[in-house]
C-alpha cells in the first residue's frame, strides 16, 4: 500500500517534537541557567543580559539532535579586542567546567561545551556565543554585535570578525509556522543524511522559497515545492541568501560550487524517488521510532508490513540476507 505522504510527514514532525524529550530539555535549560548565572557573576556589568538563540528560540528544534545556544553580549569597553573577549570567555569556561565536561572546544564564532554523560546517559551540549556591541551603550538600541571569528571558514575565511544581529535573525522567522514545519523536516532529512548543510542555510532558503514562490497545499505539497525551489535555484549564478542579521553576509558563500550542485542534485534525486514510489519518503524523512505511536506505526505511516502480519515461523519481511 502506498504511503500517504502528508500523513507520514505529519507523523515525522509529531515524533520529532521537543515535548517528547521534556526531561532532557529541562536538563538543558537547568545547565544553561547555571552557565548564564556563572557568566553574569564573573563578568558583572561588563555584559548585558545573555539570551537564548538557535533552534530552541526559533522553535525549529528537533528532538534527535539539538543543542542550546546562548549569546553573551559584552559591552564595548569590556575588552580591547574581540579576540581577547573570545579567549577570556574560553579561559573562564575551561576553568569552571573542565572537570565536568568531555570537551570544551573553540568553534567558528562560539565555544562549545559538551558535558559528561549523566546517569541516564544524556549529554548536555551548549554553544556559548560571545559578541561585543559596536559602540559603547549602543547594543540596547540596535541589537548589533561583533563576533570574533576563531576558525576561518567559508564566508569567514578572510575575516577576523563578523557583525551580526541575532535578534533580527530570530525575528526573521517569527510567526512563520508553515516555514518552521518545512525547516524542521529539512533538518530531519539533513541530520539523517550526513549533516552536510548548516541549519541556518536550510532555514533561510525555506523562508526565501515561501517569499518568492506560491508555497501552498498540504504539508507534502509545501515540502515538495520548497524542494523544487532549492533544486532549481541553489546552483544558479547570483542566487543569494542574505543573513537578516547582516546584509553583507550571503550564506551561499559558505558553499563551494560543487556543494551547491550536490544540494540541487540531492533534491532532484529525492523528488524522483519519492514520486516514483511514495514509500521512499520514509527513507528520507524518517519518523523518530522512539516516540512513534504503535497504532500508527502498523499502518502506512510506519514500517508497516505491506503483506500483512507475519505468520508463525515465517521470517518477517524485514529479514535481510547476506
Amino acid at each position: 500500500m502506498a504511503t500517504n505522504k502528508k500523513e507520514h510527514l505529519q507523523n515525522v514532525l509529531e515524533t520529532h517534537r521537543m515535548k517528547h524529550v521534556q526531561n532532557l530539555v529541562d536538563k538543558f535549560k537547568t545547565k544553561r541557567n547555571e552557565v548564564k548565572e556563572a557568566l553574569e557573576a564573573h563578568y558583572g556589568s561588563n555584559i548585558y543580559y545573555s539570551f537564548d538563540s538557535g533552534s530552541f528560540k526559533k522553535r525549529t528544534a528537533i528532538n534527535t539532535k539539538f543543542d542550546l545556544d546562548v549569546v553573551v553580549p559584552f559591552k564595548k569597553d569590556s575588552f580591547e579586542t574581540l579576540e581577547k573577549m573570545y579567549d577570556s570567555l574560553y579561559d573562564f569556561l575551561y576553568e569552571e567546567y573542565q572537570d565536568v565536561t568531555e570537551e570544551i572546544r573553540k568553534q567558528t564564532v562560539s565555544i562549545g561545551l559538551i558535558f559528561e554523560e549523566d546517569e541516564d546517559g544524556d549529554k548536555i551540549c551548549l554553544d556559548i556565543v560571545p559578541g561585543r556591541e559596536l559602540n559603547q551603550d549602543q547594543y540596547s538600541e540596535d541589537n548589533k554585535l561583533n563576533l570574533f571569528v576563531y576558525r576561518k571558514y567559508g564566508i569567514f575565511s578572510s575575516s577576523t570578525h563578523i557583525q551580526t544581529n541575532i535578534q533580527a535573525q530570530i525575528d526573521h522567522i517569527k510567526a512563520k509556522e508553515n516555514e518552521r514545519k518545512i525547516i524542521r523536516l529539512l533538518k530531519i532529512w539533513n541530520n539523517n543524511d550526513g549533516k552536510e548543510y548548516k541549519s541556518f542555510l536550510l532555514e533561510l532558503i525555506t523562508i526565501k522559497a515561501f517569499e518568492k514562490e506560491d508555497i501552498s497545499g498540504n504539508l507534502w505539497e509545501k515540502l515538495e515545492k520548497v524542494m523544487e525551489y532549492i533544486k532549481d535555484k541553489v546552483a544558479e549564478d547570483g542566487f543569494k541568501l542574505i543573513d537578516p542579521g547582516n546584509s553583507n553576509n550571503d550564506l551561499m558563500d559558505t558553499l563551494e560550487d560543487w556543494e551547491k550542485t550536490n544540494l540541487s542534485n540531492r533534491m532532484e534525486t529525492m523528488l524522483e524517488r519519492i514520486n516514483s514510489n511514495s514509500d521512499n519518503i520514509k527513507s528520507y524523512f524518517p519518523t523518530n521510532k522512539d516516540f512513534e505511536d504503535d497504532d500508527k506505526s502498523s499502518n502506512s505511516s510506519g514500517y508497516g508490513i505491506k503483506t500483512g502480519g507475519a505468520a508463525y515461523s515465517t521470517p518477517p519481511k524485514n529479514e535481510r540476507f547476506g
Partner: protein
Amino acid sequence: MGFLDDVTKLISNIPFVEKAYDFVEEKLQIRGKVIISFKELEKPLEFEIVVFKCYPLKYNDADSIKFKNSNLIEYRHVMEDGAICIHTTHHTNLKSKLNYDFHSLRNWIVKYYINKEQDDHYEHIIVDDKLINNRYWSYQFTDLKHPFEKGEFGEVSITSIQLGTFKSNLISNHIIQNFIRENGEQLECEWSQLYKNMDITNSGAYVYIETPPATYGKFIFTKWLDLQDHLPERFLNFLLEFQKRHIKHRGKLLPLFIGYKIDDVNLHWQVAMLEIGDFPIIGYQLPNKKWITIPKNELDINWGITRNTSYKYFFGRGSFSQSFAEKKILIIGVGALGSMVAKTLTRCGCRFIDIADNDIKEPENVCRSEYIFNTGLMDKTEELKFILSTISPFIETNIVDKDYFQGIIKLFHKEKGGKSSFEANLNKYDLVVDCTTDNDLMYILDSLDLKCDLINLSITNFAKELVCAFHPNTYNFVMNQFMNVLENDTSDLYNPTGCWSPTFKASYNDISLLVQMAIKHIHNLYETGSRKTNFIIENDSSNLKIVEY
C-alpha cells in the same frame, strides 16, 4: 602452387624485400633467406627465415615465423639464437599476415637497430627453466626496507611452501624470508606477519653484484667463468666455509642468490643451485702459505627459477587504488556477502582486513560463499583468515572477538561510556563494512558518532536486490527498503537440515554478481571523491541497475 612457392612469391613482392632466396621445404617448415633494404637503412640486412607450416596461424602462443640474424644479438628484443622477438597481429590470410610480419620486422629495424631506442620498462634476463636433480626449484622474493651494497654477501633463510607439478615435473617452491649480513644483521622480506612467522626450512647464500649476470644485459651467464669478475674473493672464502659447515648435508642443493639492480629503485635476484660437497670453487695454498679460493670456471651454472613477488608486481596487473588498498578495514559478518567482500578486497590489493563473526562454517555454506569443503566444520573467521592468506602474502588479518558485535555491544550500548568505547574501537579503522544483516546491530551502529566510514550491505531473497547504505543514514534507509519499497518475498525460503532459521535462496553466481558491482561502485565513489549516496542494485535477470538515493 604449394606453400613454399606461395610464401616465396609473396615475400619477394614485399617492397622492402630486396631479395628472397635459398627457400627450401622441410617436413614441418620452410627455410630461406631475405635481404631487407629501405631508405633509412644504411646497409641491407640479411635474415634467415623459418616459416612453420601452420602459418599464418600461431603455434601454441608463439608466432610461426622467425627472422634470425645472429650478428644482431646485442640489440633489444633479439634472442640468443638471433631470432628477433616480434609480436604481430592475428590474420588468417597468408598474404596479409606476411605483410604484417614483415612490417613488424621493419619497425623493429627502425626502432632498435637504426634508432637504438630503449624501452621504458626493464626487460628481464632470459633464463631457461632447467631440471636440476630431476626437479625444478623456485624461489620468490619480495621487497625489503634495506638497500644492498655492491659486493656484500651473507646467508639467506628460506621457507618451503608447496611441492607441485611444473611443466609435468616436480617443483619445489620457496619464499625467501631474510637476508643475513656478515655482521648478523637480518634484512627481513616484507611478507605478511603470517608468512614471516612460518618456519625456516632451508638455508642459502647471497651475493649482491649490482650489475646483471648476463651478456648484453639479457642472456644469463652460462659458466662460472662468466661470473669470476663479479664474485669478491672474500665471498668465495665465505662460500668455502659455508660448505664446510654444511658438509653433513653433502649432495643436497643450496641456492646461491645473485642480486643486481634493474633500475634506480628495484633489484632482482637470480639463483644458482650449488650441490653441497661439490661447490664450483676450489681452495689453493700459495707458496706464501696463504689460501685463496677460485671458481671452477669451466663448470656450467645451474640456474634455478626466481620470481619477484613484491607487492608492486603481485598486484601489477590490476588492483584498487593505493589509497583504498591501504585502508584499515573491518568486515563484520563473513557469510556469503562478507566472505566475498573480503576475498575481493584481498585480490584487489587491500592489506589490512580484520574480520568478525560468531558463526561456524557448515558444509552447506560452501556453495555460495568463499569457504572451502576440505576444512570441514570451522569458525568462519579462522577459515577466512587462512583463505585470504593463501591469496595474498601481504594481507594482515586479525580476528575480532566473536561476541563483540553481536553480543557485547548489545548488552552494553546503553551503559554509561558504552557508546564512546564502541566508537573508539571502530574509529581505529578507516572503513567498516557491516554484512551481518543484524538489524539490532545496525540500529546501534547507526546511533554512534563515527569518524570512520561505515557501509551496510545486505540482499533480498533470491538476490533480487542488493541494498547498500552509508553511515549515518543506514538504519532508517535499510529498514524502509526492506519493509516497504522492495519486494522481499520471505515466503519461499530454503530450510536447511537441523534446527535453525530458514535462509534465502540464491546461488554464488547470483550473489557475487551483485557484490562485485557494489564493490566496484563503492571503490569508484572513493576514487572520484563523490558523495557516498545510498544505493540499490536491482537485478532483473537480464540487467543490473544501480539506483542511487
